[in-house]
């Protein structure tokens, strides 16, 4: 298929996934701040959201301080912010529009309807709903987009490149969420240790809600209970979201899909890309959480993000935006 077509499909899928993950992160934060905690830690967790997407400088260019309302506005409705939900859904729709002929009518209509609904109907608009409702809507539109692709598209290259887009983005987003949440957790613990008034019970309670929110944001809370049948501990949260192949939003599950779909579009000149994807996937597959925690979670996740990024660039060069012999 045309490289440009594959590129549009890849990005269409990435933007849908990104919108969903942004909605999930914002939702988790909304849940978390309803718990009793210090104002500094509330502000900190909102600010951390911007950190996940590396958006602090851009946010500060138009906002003086970190308020929940302003951050929500920036992450949901700001069209100047290319990572906002509105920008992601627009980009997904524009990418789909450019390759309408390759998509099934249902895929196009789903993305088009999502965009139109987000933009239209003043008065009854999504803007007037509670944020939690909006986030749920975004999540379900994303489920629907993925489902309609899976359910109606021919399983050819077009499908595979869209799937690669979905799971590259998901691997990236899950890793970022984990990185930030573990950092927050470490900061809070350090503060707790210094603080005189935190009892052991307080601490357990705080940790529970922190991790429960993370799990919920990734639709993993019930899964955690089912898998571990035990209390929530950071190490297990990390294991579940990184190393379990049966957890749909984990790093391993995402990399499995990337590797599988890359294999389906295999070609000789892209073997190195396939090898790297396979290596990353295998390391997760045979990895142990204890070893990773000894190495340092932040170091591990930073390395992982760099490798996913490298993979995305290689896929782009090999398949999506190839350089021409003379047009270098």
């Amino acid at each position, binding site marked *: 298929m045309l*490289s440009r077509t594959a590129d549009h499909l890849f990005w269409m899928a990435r933007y849908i996934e990104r919108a969903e993950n942004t909605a999930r992160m914002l939702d988790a934060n909304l849940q978390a701040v309803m718990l009793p905690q210090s104002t500094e830690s509330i502000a900190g967790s909102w600010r951390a959201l911007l950190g996940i997407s590396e958006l602090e400088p851009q946010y500060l260019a138009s906002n003086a301080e970190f308020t929940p309302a302003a951050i929500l506005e920036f992450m949901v409705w700001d069209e100047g912010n290319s990572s906002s939900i509105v920008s992601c859904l627009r980009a997904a729709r524009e990418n789909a529009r*450019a390759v*309408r*002929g390759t998509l099934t009518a249902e895929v196009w209509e789903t993305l088009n309807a999502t965009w139109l609904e987000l933009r239209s109907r003043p008065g009854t608009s999504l803007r007037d709903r509670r944020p939690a409702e909006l986030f749920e809507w975004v999540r379900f539109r994303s489920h629907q987009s993925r489902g309609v692709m899976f359910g109606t598209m021919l399983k050819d290259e077009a499908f595979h490149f869209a799937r690669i887009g979905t799971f590259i983005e998901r691997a990236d987003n899950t890793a970022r969420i984990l990185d930030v949440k573990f950092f927050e957790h470490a900061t809070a613990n350090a503060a707790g240790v210094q603080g005189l008034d935190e009892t052991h019970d307080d601490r357990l309670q705080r940790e529970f809600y922190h991790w429960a929110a993370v799990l919920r944001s990734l639709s993993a809370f019930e899964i955690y209970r089912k898998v571990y049948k035990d209390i929530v501990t950071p190490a297990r949260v990390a294991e579940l979201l990184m190393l379990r192949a049966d957890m749909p939003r984990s790093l391993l599950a995402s990399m499995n899909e990337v590797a599988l779909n890359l294999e389906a579009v295999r070609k000789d000149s892209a073997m190195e890309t396939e090898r790297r994807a396979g290596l990353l996937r295998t390391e997760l597959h045979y990895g142990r959480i204890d070893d990773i925690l000894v190495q340092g979670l932040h170091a591990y996740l930073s390395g992982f993000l760099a490798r996913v990024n490298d993979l995305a660039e290689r896929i782009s060069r090999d398949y999506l935006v190839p350089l021409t*012999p003379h047009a270098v």
Partner: protein
Amino acid sequence: MATSATQNPRHSPLAPVQAAGETYDEMYEATDIYRSVRGHYKTLGNWLRAQSAQVMEGKREEADLLFRRVGITFAVSGDDSGTERLIPFDVIPRIIPAAEWRQLEAGLRQRVTALNRFIHDIYHDKEIIRAGIVPAEQIYCNEQYRPEMDGIEVPGGVYAHIAGIDVVRAGAGDFFVLEDNLRVPSGVSYMLENRKMMMRLFPDLFALHRIAPVAHYPDRLLENLRAVAPHAMHEPTVVLLTPGMYNSAYFEHTFLAEQMGIELVEGQDLFVEDETVFMRTTRGPRRVDVIYRRLDDDFLDPLAFRADSTLGVPGLLSAYRAGRVTLANAIGTGVADDKSIYPYVPDMVRFYLGEEAILKNVPTWMCRQPQDLQYVLDHLPDLVVKETHGAGGYGMLIGPRSTRAQVAAFRDRLMGNPAGYIAQPTLALSACPTYVESGIAPRHIDLRPFVLSGRDVGMVPGGLTRVALREGSLVVNSSQGGGTKDTWILEDS
């Protein structure tokens, strides 16, 4: 009125073909006392009378909804907001009896054959110029003449692979060719979608009539495109080149590529190496043999034509001249569909085919000729004046429908550049019953059949019928508020 209609149309004055007002109605035959439904409309007329207003209203809403949902829209040119609009669709079909169509078809085939011969001739031996039939300056001073094409052989000698010939019915019902579109004619997707819509809305009508099918158009088109591949290739790769999603006809480009199962490419998807065109695919470069381009000559190759074009492919012309790729339509066809060349088409038919033209031209005054100009200036309020390079219903004067001030303003423009204009009598285009706000009323229509040339010259029966929805309006262009209708060629039962 009946002054000198027998005179050579290029040497005025001419009588108008018919005074505006006496409109030929496609459905009704007027007699002295009452009007009766024409034979080929009888079944439809009876059926229409049996339908309730609510049912028809419902069907029209359904059509609107379906078109919008599928996204059969066009972008309005000159409108930067990227607005997508629906072309209004009218549910009352335009019917042409098979016998009339056979005549039309023969005329179209003859005309397009002659036009292709003409283009070949002016880029090769120039016999028609040497014979003194078409003046040399009319060719060489024409902006659409491409010296790059001189002496270049194209497969099968075909230049206009896809021709949209605009035909109107006027006067007592005679067909006239209004315009030949030989560059990148559009609209065929509406012809196909209108038929699909009618079959969906009114299956019973198709049981009552024997309507010639049109759905095989993409097949015929693909077959033609493959037939003109360079050097008899076995499995030529055909692509459709679009200017991109912001082009007003982008829907049609997507539609046709999908229907033919070929890649829809943009300029950035192609590159030229060793005078060969390749497209960038996920499996690596792939050779392209035939390009059905929906991009004007000017934008095709920034190295050869407009250097600022980002839509084209650098080096495309060199590959084309080397015979390594076929462009459909060929470069330089515009020289034959220019309004200043149009008056010569009947002469071309005579010159190349030794036949009389089956289809009539509309009498045309060429304002570059002093006596024609004088006549036009004297009769401006009665005439239609068009720019020789104009298209889309822009930049024209319809004398009888213009205010005195508009006519005066146009007179100044005309006198400033007489060679840039031609004039024609104001034709009373035929009218067809059409749904409008006040109910069913006659509205003026035209017809654009799409003539395909490859191994042979042919077409699917019918074409796109456009209708001027405003009362009394003679402009059917979609950019000017025109709509479309399904066109039925009724086979003899």
